[in-house]
């Protein structure tokens, strides 16, 4: 290699390094001086923005008067590509009313390990009962803990419409006996 080419390649290399490190240092300076928004966040203290359509953990919703929206039709189970929903319907009676229609879901279980969060259950539900909301921190220790039951999905009822827990227990026993 002649001295000329050696010098030339050295200068070229130095120039390229200057461009590269220039960019890196510019970013560094921007972050330090906070002239540009920082893209990383300090999870879990800070949370990133979530959007209205976010599809995470399911919720079984209620009407304003506290009745459950779910009518136990099992359409969500039919629409689920992972086949992870199990619904067992039972009849409403006038004394024990859970939902406006004839039937309600006595059991509603989703195997969250199988769920792929596709949102088809939400699209299929005719009453808008099952919806996917924003809670995404779903890790747990044992596989059994991922079998979510109706109690875990159900939205808290408004206070004044709450059925006492003892009544629900009695109703469940009755249903089980049927």
């Amino acid at each position, binding site marked *: 290699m002649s001295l000329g080419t050696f010098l030339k390649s050295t200068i070229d290399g130095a120039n390229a390094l200057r461009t590269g490190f220039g960019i890196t240092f510019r970013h560094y300076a921007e972050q330090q001086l906070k002239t540009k928004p920082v893209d990383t966040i300090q999870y879990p203290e800070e949370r990133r923005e979530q*959007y209205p359509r976010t599809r995470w953990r399911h919720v079984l919703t209620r009407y304003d008067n506290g009745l459950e929206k779910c009518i136990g039709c099992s*359409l969500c189970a039919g629409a689920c*590509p992972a086949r992870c929903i199990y619904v067992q319907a039972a009849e409403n009676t006038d004394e024990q009313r859970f939902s406006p229609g004839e039937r309600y879901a006595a059991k509603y279980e989703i195997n969250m390990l199988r769920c*792929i969060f596709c949102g*088809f259950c939400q699209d299929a539900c005719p009453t808008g009962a099952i919806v996917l909301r924003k809670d995404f921190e779903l890790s747990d220790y044992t596989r059994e803990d991922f079998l979510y039951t109706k109690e875990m999905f159900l939205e808290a009822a408004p206070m004044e419409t709450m059925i006492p827990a003892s009544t629900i227990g009695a109703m469940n026993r009755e249903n089980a006996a049927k």
Partner: protein
Amino acid sequence: MAIELQELNTNALNAQGIQVDALDDTTMVINMGPQHPSTHGVLRVVLELDGEIIVRATPHIGYVHTGIEKSMEYQTYMKAVTNTDRMDYLSAHINNAAFTLSVENLLGIAPPPRGQMLRVMLMEIQRLASHLVWIATHCLDLGAMTVYFYAFQQREKLLDLTEMISGVRMMPSWIVPGGLRGDAPEGWFERAKEFVDNFPEALEELENLLSANPIFRERTQGVGYISVDECLGLGVSGSTLRAAGVDYDVRKAKPYSGYEQFDFYVPLGEFSDVYDRFRVRMAEMWQSREIIKQCIEKMPEGAINISDRKIVPPPRKELDNSMEAVIHHFKLWTEGFHPPVGESYVPLESPKGEIGFYIVSDGTNRPYRAHMRPPSFMNLQALSTMCVGRLMADVVAVIGSIDIVLGEIDR
């Protein structure tokens, strides 16, 4: 000593049913992968080396085989869309569209203009996101770590767009037969516009970091050459083929979803090496941005889905006051629709190459057979041709340059 090691190695490989039959005693067979940081997933390359020169490179695949095509045959057409997301997980929208267009071809339907254009926009967003992951990981393999962070910063913005419209970042299943599952939410086009405006600066920065860098050029220029004939013989498509100078982009050659309305060009390379593939993909990113920009400007008003209630469920508000709508809704979500007997294949341009689903319908509500033409699989076959006679370190550069996703190769 070397020969003994060689024998040990060969025996171990033979025991696993892998034929190595080294050419002669002076070569050495080694494994690269399946757990190697630069093999982009679980790819294993069995390399036969003469010193540090590669004599043969044989990719071994199947480590993430899930039988996903088979399981599609047990889903209705609508539900099978969720399986396509998980094949090439970096370009979910485009996989959805590939399956959907094939089914729509069977049914003989096409969504209204707004649906078409929204699809194009989502697909281009996905192409950009996929290319950004490619450049990030490719450069990481070559030792340029900074690029990774800047590329992922931009990709984050694209995933935000996907999340805004579909609710998830990676597995949207948003493009379904008949149209899309939902229109763009409020403020989505403004966010997209903001991205389009700010992206050139970031892209230029990425280019500046790399294209003049002597180390990057040394590692990539002249490496991984493959001739046009070999490309065509092996079925290579996508940017790898275009880097060899063949003007074949499905978006231009066989326009689908209304790509003919857009003004963009197909970048070509001339030397067919790793550096050219880099240049071609960089230029493609500029073109994708161009298409997204045109989409935002031209987006027509109107419906996104076809109005055939036998294929697309009725809008929710109809359910409350029309019994017919309820019946259609129940029927679609439990049974789905029945395409006529026949078969169909519609090619699309994915970030990796030509993708398409070959679907056979026997008239029931589930595909009799659904097979994907995986571009990564075809492109990977060219690995051996590209590597032979080069140094071992070049394998890393070549694997990065053909942009493979193992989820798609193994399915």
